[in-house]
């Protein structure tokens, strides 16, 4: 039989030993206390479907961020024109990213353009029949969109951090998507609400002169909006909705907050108390001072939480938000207010929630089917191919060790389909050895000596194994490229397993055969 080079032996044994070390923490189900610290202690990372958790694909509605910017532009143009003492009929947002300024016929378009050019240097201004039209430039829009997504990621991350999730993963996907993975969550629906909330806090004055009845019938004054306050949503009581006519422009917004905390009123009801920064406190004092006797609505995401009457000027920059909160509600509201508003609303495109018990059931099923599948294959190979079959079995076992070790080292997620991949691999990995053994049998039938048959068998089977494994690998890699989530996990185990099986089924079995047979006079092979 051909020599098996010493260096190959050393490398192979090293690979096997290192793999066993790396896979032991996982196979023992944890790192034991006596485990020395210099040894690898990483366990295979369980995917969301195995440990339970929340997978969310969010779409950031960047269009809304652009619209908001255009709305802001309306205000700025108004201020600019007032400063230049230029009269206008109306200033309105047109479409997503433009503002139309209607001018009286006696106001010169050129004058207005000049004034606007002064205040908005980069603005694109064009004339329309009875006024002007100002449009956000393409770069501005692109910048707004990018900012909206980046800011959303940051805000959501800070919300999650404050909520307390062990290993959150947040990634930007494509241009306007965020992929969020939160493993091991007890209350996914609460986390979802926390993440998805825009949390735009606004203080708006109630239009005391406005006609609510007329507004309900459909005629809302141009500068007003109709919002509802929900009250009394306590146990056993249906929530009631009270319409309120509010000034559209927010007198003050939540971005001037420095802090938000949970507190309790004298009845023990939860409430959230907020603290403004210096600028916010000044504005708040001015606002409350100017409108004593009027009502001011506290609006969060277009829902009125309360609309108390302002009794006096409020100094010190503190305010309270009440609204029949449960302690959890108040806690979460404080978090989102502290973390800040999302620059644009987010929408859930895809969600997958797995409860913790389902995850552990899946692991159990995975272990049972792996053991059973492995047992069946080992028995079959042992009976059919005897000695060489058992050698193939040992190779498959090492294959699993290597696979576990690589998964643990890379911290690639093992998923439910991934476990199926491992089980499938047990069945497919013996294929290389079946090819080799069948070839050896053929050579023996041709009358070759056992040793020569082994050499020939390995040599002839090698090309076939290489070709067939590489083509299978091609499909595994494509699956990895196009798969998402759990399916990707399957592709990972399959790819690693296929590569490892080439080593275990060809090199390792060859090595073992060499050391078993080298000092014997072999008359016949056990196969």
């Amino acid at each position, binding site marked *: 039989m051909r020599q098996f080079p010493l260096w190959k032996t050393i490398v192979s044994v090293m690979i096997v030993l290192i793999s066993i070390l790396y896979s032991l923490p996982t196979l023992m189900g944890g790192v034991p206390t006596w485990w020395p610290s210099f040894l690898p202690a990483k366990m295979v990372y369980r995917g969301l479907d195995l440990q339970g958790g929340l997978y969310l694909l969010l779409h950031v509605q960047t269009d809304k961020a652009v619209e908001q910017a255009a709305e802001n532009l309306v205000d700025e143009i108004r201020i600019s024109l007032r400063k230049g003492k230029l009269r206008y009929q109306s200033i309105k947002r047109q479409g997503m990213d433009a503002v139309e300024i209607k001018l009286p016929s006696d106001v010169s378009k050129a004058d207005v353009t000049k004034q606007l050019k002064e205040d908005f240097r980069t603005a694109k201004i064009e004339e329309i029949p009875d006024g002007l039209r100002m449009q956000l430039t393409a770069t501005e829009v692109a910048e707004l969109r990018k900012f909206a997504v980046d800011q959303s990621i940051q805000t959501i991350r800070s919300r999650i951090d404050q909520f307390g999730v062990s290993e959150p993963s947040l990634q930007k996907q494509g241009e306007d998507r965020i992929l969020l993975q939160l493993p091991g969550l007890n209350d996914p629906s609460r986390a979802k609400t926390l993440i998805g909330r825009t949390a735009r806090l606004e203080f708006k004055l109630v239009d005391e002169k406005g006609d609510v009845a007329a507004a309900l019938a459909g005629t809302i004054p141009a500068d007003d909006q109709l919002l509802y306050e929900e009250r009394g949503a306590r146990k056993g009581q249906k929530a009631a909705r009270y319409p309120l006519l509010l000034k559209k422009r927010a007198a003050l917004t939540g971005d001037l907050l420095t802090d938000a905390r949970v507190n309790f009123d004298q009845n023990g009801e939860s409430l959230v108390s907020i603290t403004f920064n210096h600028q916010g406190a000044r504005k708040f004092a001015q606002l409350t001072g100017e409108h004593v006797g009027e009502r001011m609505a506290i609006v969060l995401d277009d829902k009125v939480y309360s609309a108390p009457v302002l009794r006096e000027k409020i100094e010190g920059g503190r305010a309270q938000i009440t609204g029949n909160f449960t302690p959890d509600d108040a806690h979460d509201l404080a978090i989102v207010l502290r973390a800040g508003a999302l620059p644009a609303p987010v929408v*859930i495109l*895809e969600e997958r929630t*797995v409860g913790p018990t389902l995850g552990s*059931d*899946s692991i159990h099923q995975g272990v049972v*089917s792996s053991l059973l599948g492995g047992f*069946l294959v080992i028995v079959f190979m042992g009976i059919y191919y005897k000695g060489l079959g058992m050698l193939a079995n040992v190779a498959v076992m090492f294959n699993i060790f290597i696979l576990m070790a690589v998964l643990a080292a890379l911290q690639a997620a093992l998923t439910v389909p991934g476990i199926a991949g491992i*089980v499938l691999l047990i069945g497919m990995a013996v294929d290389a050895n079946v090819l080799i053994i069948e070839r050896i049998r053929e050579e023996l039938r041709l009358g070759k000596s056992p040793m020569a048959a082994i050499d020939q068998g390995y040599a002839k089977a090698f090309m076939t194994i290489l070709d067939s494994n590489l083509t299978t690998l091609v499909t595994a890699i494509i699956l990895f490229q196009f798969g998402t989530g759990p399916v990707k996990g399957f592709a990972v185990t399959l790819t690693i397993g296929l590569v490892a099986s080439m080593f275990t089924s060809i090199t390792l079995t060859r090595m073992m055969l060499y050391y078993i047979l080298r000092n014997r006079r072999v008359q016949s092979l056990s196969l």
Partner: protein
Amino acid sequence: MELISSTLNIDFVGIRKWAFAISGGLVLLSIVSLVTLGLNFGLDFAGGAVMQLRFPGPAPIADIRTALGEIGMGSAVIQEFGSPQEILIRLHQEKQGSDGEASKVAQKIVDAVSPLVDKGQEGKVEVRRFEFVGPQVGHELTINGIRAVIFSWLAILVYVGFRFEFRFALGAVLALVHDVLITLGFFSVTQKEFSLVVVAAVLTLIGYSINDTIVVFDRIRDETKRLRQHSLAVVINEAINRTLSRTIITSLTVVLVLLALFFYGGEVIHDFALTLLLGVVVGTWSSIYVASPIVLALENRRLAKARQSEN
């Protein structure tokens, strides 16, 4: 032990007309079914929501139906899942409401169903799983799945064309198209749910089937050197016969592990294992009766043309 005799000599090539008829018939049937019945696309592709709930006792399915009807989800499909304690609730895309609503659906269902737990029972309703896929993502997943399959065909066409000859590549890929069509046809005829996991299984089956085909091709390449004077038909027959033992044994080991997965792998893996069980049979058949005979047919056509041009 030897299941397949080493001196076996079946004339696989001789009966290729019959094999083509069977394969062609199945493919045709599959295409007809795919066109008329279509596939029963699951959540991943059609969009919608699925919720798996576990009750402390037997799930009161009739009451659950009423409760869901009251909150406007009367069209939801409710079925027992695995055990009498567990149910699966499916909601179709159009009943899903607007984008913002989707995230609240889960909570709404739990709120509606929770009171149904019998007073005497300990515990509460447990959400084992909730999945929601929006229409846009469903569409993207569909496109991705189709792309993955087509790319794998192209990649194999290139690899086999490079390692062997183009006729071999064509035979291999046509065999794969045959496998995929029949598998899809099975899902169409039975109207079993077609999910992302099934697509993964289809790609695995492509990997398995091409593996099988390559082993035969490799042997054909080997035997061509040995049997130089013989026609391609003889060479192919010899190659298939000599690799038949390996083909059967490997299929058997794979079937063994698939049976373990089918019976003990859990609900998600069940369909995966079923697809592959079918795939192993179809893939093995196509490696023997489709891939190589196509190579032979191409060879015969080439020879016929050559003869014609000589005359």
